[in-house]
């Protein structure tokens, strides 16, 4: 204890900064909205954490707190982390946004990284993945493969990220199948297997033969498997829960980003930034495509992935109208990131209203 304090004092005195000292590992904290065993969203963030540990060995010390409810609890957990000497804290749910900003204000020396949010500060970066690029690909596959022309979509909260995903998937399903219809159920939770399972059941009962989910548990995939319909995994490879059902899965690969940001803190080059990476840098990846996808559809999907990677194709390319019929994008026009980041409208063709 005494030696540690002395060392810390000495490093400060020499102006090296505690983080750079070899004997004093960089403390990196992670706050998860679900359990690490959700095999979805939080699982992948934890994989990222493990990658940081692997990359830096004993130069880092990582901690995590799982199943932290959004709101006051999250603020408490973050404060605790900051107080216990963490240098870098990743808060990995949209709903942590205001808590992150509030805690960051109190601890200007601690660096914060908030996933999927849009509020930044000098010591708060935001990062997200362009999941809509992945959704475009699975939308294309769904449009080609649905036989009932009803695609079930289990949505969590009506926030831009989720709405963007619905729009992107629908747009690309519609392009290849004008008769396709999306049924959307809002469950108002990121992680509640019972509710997600009931929602999946309701959608299947109403004729959906392909399920997409924007929630974190594997329950919808389990139900799809049980009922013998097709489904797309979310955030992680869910093949274990739907060996026959899973067509592919959008995988969030946070590891490279987490390693890079941890490195930046070590080097003292960390700056508040807004990162929004897609398929190209590998933040959005895919699970192995199922054999059930016909070869031509698979080739098209792979071509689309390549085109998005190379920048030749943007999933939101005009002409595109909003749901009410008003024009959004002109011929050949590409959506700008600002509009995408704050997307709060459906595109033309989608039925129903976004709950407010």
């Amino acid at each position, binding site marked *: 204890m005494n030696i540690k304090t002395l060392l810390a004092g000495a490093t400060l005195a020499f102006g090296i900064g505690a983080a750079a000292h070899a004997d004093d590992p960089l403390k990196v904290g992670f706050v998860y909205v679900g359990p690490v065993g959700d095999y979805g969203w939080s699982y992948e963030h934890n994989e990222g954490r493990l990658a940081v540990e692997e990359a830096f060995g004993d130069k880092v010390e990582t901690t995590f707190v799982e199943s932290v409810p959004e709101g006051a609890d999250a603020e408490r957990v973050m404060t605790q982390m900051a107080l216990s000497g963490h240098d870098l804290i990743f808060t990995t749910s949209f709903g942590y946004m205001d808590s992150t900003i509030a805690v960051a204000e109190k601890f200007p020396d601690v660096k914060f990284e908030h996933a999927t949010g849009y509020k930044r500060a000098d010591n708060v970066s935001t990062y997200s993945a362009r999941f809509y690029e992945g959704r475009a690909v699975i939308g294309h596959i769904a449009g080609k493969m649905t036989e009932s022309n009803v695609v079930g979509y289990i949505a969590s909260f009506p926030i831009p990220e989720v709405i963007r995903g619905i729009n992107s998937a629908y747009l690309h399903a519609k392009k290849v199948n004008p008769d396709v219809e999306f049924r959307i159920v809002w469950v108002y939770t990121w992680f509640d297997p019972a509710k997600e399972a009931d929602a999946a059941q309701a959608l299947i009962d109403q004729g959906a033969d392909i399920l997409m989910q924007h929630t974190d548990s594997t*329950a919808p995939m389990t139900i799809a498997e049980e009922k013998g319909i097709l489904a797309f995994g979310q955030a992680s490879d869910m093949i274990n829960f739907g060996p026959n059902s899973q067509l592919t899965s959008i995988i969030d690969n946070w590891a490279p980003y987490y390693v890079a940001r941890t490195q930046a803190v070590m080097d003292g080059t960390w700056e508040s930034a807004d990162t929004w990476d897609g398929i190209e840098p590998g933040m959005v990846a895919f699970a192995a495509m199922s054999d059930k996808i016909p070869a031509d559809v698979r080739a098209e999907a792979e071509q689309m992935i390549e085109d998005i990677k190379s920048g030749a194709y943007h999933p939101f390319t005009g002409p595109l109208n909003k749901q009410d019929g008003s024009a959004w994008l002109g011929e050949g026009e590409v959506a700008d990131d600002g509009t995408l980041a704050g997307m709060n409208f459906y595109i033309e063709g989608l039925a129903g209203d976004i709950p407010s």
Partner: protein
Amino acid sequence: MDLSSIDPILLIAALIVAATPILLAAIGELVVEKAGVLNLGVEGMMITGAICGFAVAVETQNPALGFIGAALGGAALSLIFGFLTQYLLSNQVATGLALTLFGLGISALIGQAYIGVKPPITADLDIPLLSDVPVIGPILFQHNLMVYLSLGIVAGVWYLLKYTRVGLVLRAVGENHDAAHALGYKVVRIRMLAIAFGGACAGLGGAYLSLIRVPQWTEGMTAGAGWIALAIVVFASWKPWRVLLGAYLFGGITVLQLNLQAAGLKIPVEYLSMSPYLITILVLVIMSADRSRAALNAPAALGRPFHASS
């Protein structure tokens, strides 16, 4: 909005599945309350049953053993409550609430190793011929064994309470434990048995969630079902068949709101999501306002501690 896309037959079938956990827990609690004990720990016993059943089913790869394990787990937890309230005469309300908190905690602890694990599949009972009958077939004859077991338990409890000596003794203990004691009935022993039965039923309800409805283990997966079960007992004015009605009604609202959403009905989701709880409160208010009726049906000794010397 496209209401025609809701198939009423499938809706009713889904409703039965969604209601079964609440039904099981509620019918167990009914017996407990009929014996004059108020156990508010239903939620805790359900979640404990959910993880015990899940763990046993995963370890043995046998769902039937899982359900037995769930019943034992729920009963074991309820016996803690029984010991505290019946022998140590602790306050039933406080002990019941503590049991819920304890159950949520211990289930999370046991469940650490079972997150993300797939349980063995409980097969649906496809009764030949009967399950092919249009309309009635899918509604009544294509469920798993637990659905029929839950209905069997309701019928059994009804018959037991109404027509048998055992039921009469149980009701006597619940109505007036001093008189029952004077007649030579072992009040505490009978109550302990009732409490264990209630715990076992709640455990089965929990396991239904973790083994059939989801099927997966998650912390806190009962999500308030135990509280609704408690409300249903009051709503049903301690009558078994009304418990069945109440459970299907409440289970139905959850399923209905998801179905209405999928059909694109323009109802704010928040209202639909809170509707089961709102109706529960409403029913409780109406029940308590009508004093004479409620008093007529509630077991007279409900929640009152018994000691042989008094």
